[in-house]
């Protein structure tokens, strides 16, 4: 079935209207910018209700199969809906790990039973998902995970801990990577992958206070926690392979995500607008030649990123390193965001030194965004690790 231009145009209008009319009113409390910053029950419930509403009205999971809770439509419609969400600056959909990583993973590699059981709850936000990859002693070095899973009858007994579990205290399921063996040919061989139920005895997520002073994620402790053996994804020892597939979704290198706005994205237009309002030495910052040059540089970089996405759709224009664009998405966007926030603060003169308070420019959101921006440049593999990965896998440089 092909989609006609008329259908696309009609849907564009429909989505645009729906998000214009249904954008939630300001809740009266500060909203997080990403799922990694959900710090209070109030924030969580607000966002979960929003995702549920978006799902019930058919604007997320549109391209996922009907039989599991999606709409079975062409991806183009989901892209339009996602764009409308960004345009109307509606809140993001909080079940990010489910929608963008675990969901597409289950659809791509899961069994029929797993698809039936998990997909709908991911879309409706009824079942929140979290991720148990990083450990306190092994941040970006996932292959060295030490959290142990020992088979006991039809259960696994888990011991150890995971860190940076966003939404840990709200999650029903965790995508968990744990060590089922230590005597494989290498460290990767002993890893296994689980879709672990969080409401199991012995699993305890403890909130961590972030550099912003807020809460947003947990360290999750496993003390003889028993989970059903049936929740293993793939076979014992295949965990690394499944985890790598997950990371391809996480980094946007593989498609199939449910779509929907994953974060309140900061656009370069916001910075230009701030530069018009913010004053340096009594004059609008945008009149300062030094500020202007830096703004142009940032716009050029932001446009470059968007043109890269456009060029990636033209196979004839791939370079000798065809995976470079898809493999570098997270690195480029997270680093740009961090620098945009840094720059936004620099526009404020002495007020740059304020923090979240009524006196601060825009209530201090730029300072808070800057501190939070490190979640992007550190989470999911630090920018430094990303450089290694791209250097080795895209350019073929030797490992260190």
């Amino acid at each position, binding site marked *: 079935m092909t989609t006609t231009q008329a259908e696309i145009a009609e849907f564009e209008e429909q989505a645009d209207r729906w998000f214009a009319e249904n954008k939630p009113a300001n809740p009266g409390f500060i909203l997080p910018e990403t799922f990694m910053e959900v710090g209070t029950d109030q924030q969580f419930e607000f966002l979960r209700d929003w995702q549920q509403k978006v799902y019930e009205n058919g604007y997320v999971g549109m391209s996922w199969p009907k039989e599991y809770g999606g709409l079975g439509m062409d991806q183009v419609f989901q892209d339009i809906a996602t764009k409308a969400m960004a345009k109307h600056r509606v809140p993001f959909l909080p079940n990010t790990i489910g929608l963008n990583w675990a969901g597409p993973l289950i659809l791509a590699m899961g069994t029929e039973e797993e698809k039936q059981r998990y997909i709908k709850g991911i879309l409706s936000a009824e079942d929140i998902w979290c991720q148990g990859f990083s450990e306190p002693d092994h941040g970006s070095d996932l292959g060295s995970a030490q959290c142990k899973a020992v088979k006991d009858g039809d259960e696994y007994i888990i011991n150890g801990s995971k860190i940076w579990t966003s939404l840990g205290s709200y999650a029903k399921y965790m995508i968990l990577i744990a060590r089922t063996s230590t005597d494989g040919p290498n460290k990767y061989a002993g890893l296994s992958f689980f879709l672990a139920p969080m409401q199991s005895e012995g699993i305890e997520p403890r909130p961590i206070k972030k550099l912003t002073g807020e809460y947003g994620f947990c360290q999750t402790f496993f003390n003889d926690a028993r989970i059903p053996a049936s929740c293993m994804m793939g076979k014992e020892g295949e965990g690394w392979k499944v985890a790598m597939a997950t990371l391809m979704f996480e980094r946007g290198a593989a498609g199939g995500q449910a779509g929907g706005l994953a974060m309140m994205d900061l656009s370069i237009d916001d910075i230009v607008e701030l530069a018009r309002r913010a004053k340096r030495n009594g004059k609008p910052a945008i009149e300062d030649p030094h500020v202007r040059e830096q*703004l142009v540089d940032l716009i050029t970089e932001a446009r470059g990123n968007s*043109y890269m996405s456009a*060029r990636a*759709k033209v196979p004839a*224009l791939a370079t000798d*390193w065809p995976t470079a664009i898809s493999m570098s998405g997270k690195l480029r966007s997270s680093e740009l965001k961090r620098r945009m926030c840094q720059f936004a603060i620099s526009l404020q003169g002495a007020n740059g030194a304020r923090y979240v308070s009524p006196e601060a420019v825009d209530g201090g959101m730029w300072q808070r965004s800057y501190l939070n921006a490190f979640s992007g440049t550190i989470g999911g593999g630090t920018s430094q690790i990303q450089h290694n990965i791209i250097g080795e896998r895209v350019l073929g*440089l030797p490992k*260190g």
Partner: protein
Amino acid sequence: MATIEFSEEQTMLMETAVDFCRKHSPLDRVRTQIEQEASVDPSVWQEMVDLGWLGITIPETYGGLGLSLADVVPIVESMGRHLMGSPFLPTTLAAQALLTSGSEGQKEQWLPQIAAGMPASIALTEDDGNWNLAELGSFANVQGDKVRLTAKKGFVLDASQAKVIVVSANVDGKPGLVLVQAEQLPQGALVRETVIDETRRSFTLEVDDLELPAEQVLPEADFASIEQAALLLLSAEMSGGLAGVLHVIIDYLTTRKQFDQYIGSYQSLKHPTVEILLSMEACRSHVYRAATCIAQGNIGEIEEAVRMAKAQGSEAFAFAGDRAVQFHGGFGFTYDCDAQLFLRRALWCQYQFGDAAYHRNLLAPLLLDEVAL
């Protein structure tokens, strides 16, 4: 949503150009050509002509292919990648000058010859490096059916081979363009310049009160279009050059050992190499976005797009060339190391027609200021 289009014609031209440049311009050939008088071997030039490349942007009525500058981009990019020298770029720009600003008679006289392989050139920059139209030192005065031209231009590419050169000058007080034929130039009017990119053949053109037929003044002077064409093609050359220099870097990083390790395993070299890769990807994206704007006739966006491409590419290519030399260590300090070829090319491209700071300065009002209604 900004798109990037790439037509079947472009795809075919690119495939041909990639093979052509790989075959005719391996780096050892680039080096032997440096020693020659001309920037390209005559037989190679003839092959370009036979492929129809000189007529790509020239309408079919004048013997060309009737395509757009966007179709030239993949060719220039491939040439850039292999550091191929030739009068292709100045000839294409001279054709643009005639196309956008020439009279019907001038087009009829010269465009078919260019399409058939006659080298041409363009002289926009004054010998002091300034090409700002408000400060043109060169001038021409029309009296009856004669025009008298006094000009001192620099960076006139392949001028000794060019049969015609389009020269910018104040014509009766207004920025304009005058066409000069090779045979009209007095002895000594062209002097070879020493420039940093040794694959180029660059000349100073100096004439003092040279009398020419008045019909050699172009009736229009669409400097904006000509400059945009120059920026687009230089950026395409940089995009190709970035890919070329990245290969040179990777070859060395994966074969050279120090302290028992391939040097590419050291993060201090690996990470900047990745930065170069990403800047190349960005450059290529800006270039083909600009090409798309031109192909679609998206007039309002062309200036913005080409200036961005030139600003981004200038910095990226110069950084890549600089790091390429550094990463080769002691070998990088020698003439034999190919890194210097790319660094020299990068510096040429960076400073011709404005570096990053120059274009950012001009982009600022386009991108930041509310349009006054």
